[in-house]
C-alpha cells in the first residue's frame, strides 16, 4: 500500500508545482455556477418551484454537482491509457511491480486531492450563500453523500481503466471513449437533475452506477434526498465498483496477453 501512497503524494506534488491549468479548471466551476444562475433564473422567472426545486435549491444543486464534476477527471484515464498503448509507451507500466488499476486509482487520488483544495472553498462559500435559512436535510444523509463522492470517483476511474485497456486488443478505443462520455454525462445528472426525468427512466437509472457519482451525492448534500434512498444508491454503487474492479482485473489479464507490443 505504501507504494501507492507514494504515487498519490508525488502526483499531488506535481500538480502544485506545474499544473496551473488544473487550478484554472477548478476556478472554472465558479463560472459555471454564474452561468447556471442566469439560465435557471430565466426558467424560474415568476415560478416558485420547478420539478420540486426552489430556485435556491436548484442553484445549490448546481454548485455541489459542478464541484463534484470538477473532481471527476477520470476521462483522462482512458484517453491516456489509449494513447500510451497505441504508442508503445504502456510497457513502462507492465514491467514495474505495480497493480495497474491501483496505480491509476492512486494517481487520480493525488490529482483529485489537489483539485479538492480549490473546489472545497467554492462549495462552502456557495453553500453559505444559497443555503441561507439553514440546512433542511438529515445530517446522516449529508455524511453519506460525502462518503459517496470518493466511491463514485473510484468507480469512474476503474470504469475508464477498463475502457482504456481494451486498446490492447482494439488498438484504438477513441470511439468508445467518445460514445460513453455522452451517455455517462446524461445519466450522471451533469446535464439536468435526473429527477426531472419520467419515472420509468428514473427507475432504470437508479440501478446504474452513473447517477450515484454526481447526482445522488449532490442531492444528499443539499438535503434533497432522504437517507434510505441514499443508502440504496450507495449499495448499488458499491456493487458496481466491486463488479467493475473484478471485470477490469480479469480484462487486463486477458487483454495484455493479446498485446503485441505495437509501437516499440
Amino acid at each position: 500500500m505504501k507504494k501507492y501512497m507514494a504515487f498519490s503524494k508525488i502526483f499531488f506534488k506535481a500538480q502544485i508545482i506545474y499544473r496551473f491549468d488544473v487550478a484554472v479548471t477548478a476556478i472554472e466551476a465558479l463560472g459555471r455556477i454564474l452561468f447556471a444562475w442566469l439560465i435557471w433564473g430565466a426558467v424560474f422567472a415568476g415560478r416558485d418551484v420547478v420539478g420540486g426545486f426552489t430556485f435556491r435549491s436548484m442553484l445549490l444543486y448546481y454548485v455541489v454537482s459542478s464541484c463534484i464534476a470538477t473532481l471527476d477527471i477520470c476521462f483522462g484515464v482512458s484517453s491516456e491509457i489509449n494513447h500510451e498503448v497505441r504508442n508503445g509507451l504502456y510497457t513502462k507500466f507492465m514491467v514495474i511491480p505495480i497493480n495497474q488499476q491501483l496505480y491509476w486509482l492512486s494517481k487520480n487520488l493525488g490529482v483529485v486531492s489537489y483539485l479538492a483544495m480549490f473546489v472545497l472553498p467554492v462549495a462552502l462559500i456557495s453553500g453559505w450563500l444559497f443555503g441561507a435559512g439553514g440546512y433542511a436535510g438529515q445530517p446522516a444523509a449529508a455524511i453519506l453523500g460525502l462518503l459517496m463522492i470518493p466511491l463514485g470517483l473510484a468507480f469512474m476511474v476503474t470504469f475508464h481503466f477498463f475502457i482504456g485497456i481494451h486498446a490492447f486488443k482494439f488498438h484504438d478505443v477513441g470511439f468508445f471513449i467518445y460514445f460513453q462520455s455522452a451517455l455517462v454525462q446524461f445519466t450522471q445528472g451533469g446535464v439536468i437533475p435526473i429527477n426531472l426525468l419520467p419515472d420509468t427512466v428514473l427507475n432504470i437509472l437508479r440501478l446504474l452506477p452513473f447517477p450515484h457519482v454526481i447526482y445522488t451525492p449532490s442531492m444528499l448534500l443539499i438535503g434533497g434526498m432522504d437517507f434510505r434512498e441514499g443508502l440504496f444508491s450507495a449499495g448499488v454503487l458499491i456493487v458496481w465498483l466491486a463488479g467493475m474492479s473484478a471485470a477490469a482485473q480479469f480484462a487486463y489479464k486477458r487483454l495484455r496477453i493479446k498485446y503485441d507490443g505495437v509501437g516499440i
Partner: protein
Amino acid sequence: MNVITTQGLSKIYKRFEKEAGLKGSVKSLFNRKFTEKHAVSAFDLNIEKGEFVGLIGPNGAGKTTLVKMLTGIIAPTSGEISVLGYYPNKLENAFKKQYAVVMGQKSQLFFELTPTDTFRLFKELYAIPDDLYKRNVGYFVELFGVSQFLNVQVRTLSLGERMKMELIVALLHSPGVLFLDEPTIGLDAASQRQMRLFLKEVNREKGTTILLTSHYMEDVRSLCPRSIVIGGGAKIYDGSTDNLFDSYQTRKKITLAFDTETDFTVPYNCELIDKSPYKVVFMAPKDGDARLISTLAQEYTPIDISAEEEDIGAVVERIYAGGMNR
C-alpha cells in the same frame, strides 16, 4: 548458472493488411486480410549470470521482439522461455523486481515528474532500503554527472540527459538482469562513450547480466565479449565478438602518398578506391598486408604509407549478408 534460457522460441505476429487506395480501404472493411509475420523463429539462447551479450542484426531482424518476449511484455507464440527461472509473460512481481529494461526509443519515465521524484517512486516500488538507495543514487548521479538536472521535469530534458536518467532509474533496484534495446541511439559521441563506461562498470562491479542491442558496432565491440547475430528472426552467429569481426574483416585500407608524380599499378587481388598522381588508396586482403606494404615501400618510395581497418559498416553489411546466405 543460466539466467536466460530459450528453446525453439518463436513469435508470429498477425498483421492486418489493406490494399492501396480508397477502394482498398472499403474492401478491407468487409474482408479483412491478415498476414503472418515470423518475427522470431526457433530461437535457442543460453545466457549465464554476469555475461554481457550483444545482440545485433539488421532492421526488422527480430531483436526488439526477442527483448519483448524476454521481458514478458509479449507472449511467445511457441517454444520455451525462462528468465531467472520465471516464465516472463506471467509478469509476476517477484520476477519484475529482478530485472530492468531500457528502450532507447521509448521512455520508461513519467514525463510530468522530476528525476528526483521518479527515483523516490522507484524506491517505494521496489522497496529499496534507505542506505542502498542513497548509495545507488549518489553513485550513479556522480558517474553520469547529471546532478544539475535532478529537479526539473523529465519532459524538459534533452535526449541524452533523459537516457542517462532512464539508465539510473533502471539500475536503482540493482537488477540481476538488464535488457537494453538501443540505449545509445541518438546520443553524441561523448555521451555514447560515457554510457559505455557506465555499462562496463555496472557489469563488472555489480555482476549484472546485460543483453544489449545496438546498431553502433562500437558499443558491441567494446562492451560485449559475446555476440549474437540475428537475421530474419533466426540466429546466424553466436560466439566471440572478436572472432566475428575478425572473420568478416578480410580487408585493409592502404593509403600511399608520394612527393613526385607516380604511376601506380594496383597490386594483384587489390581493389582501387582512389588514385591521383600524388596519392593512391586501395583495399588489400588482410593476410599478407605487412609483406605487401614493405614491397610497395621499396618499389615506390612513398613519403607516407598507412594501413587502416576496413570501415566497420562494410564489415557489418557482410556479416548480415553472410548470415542470410548461410
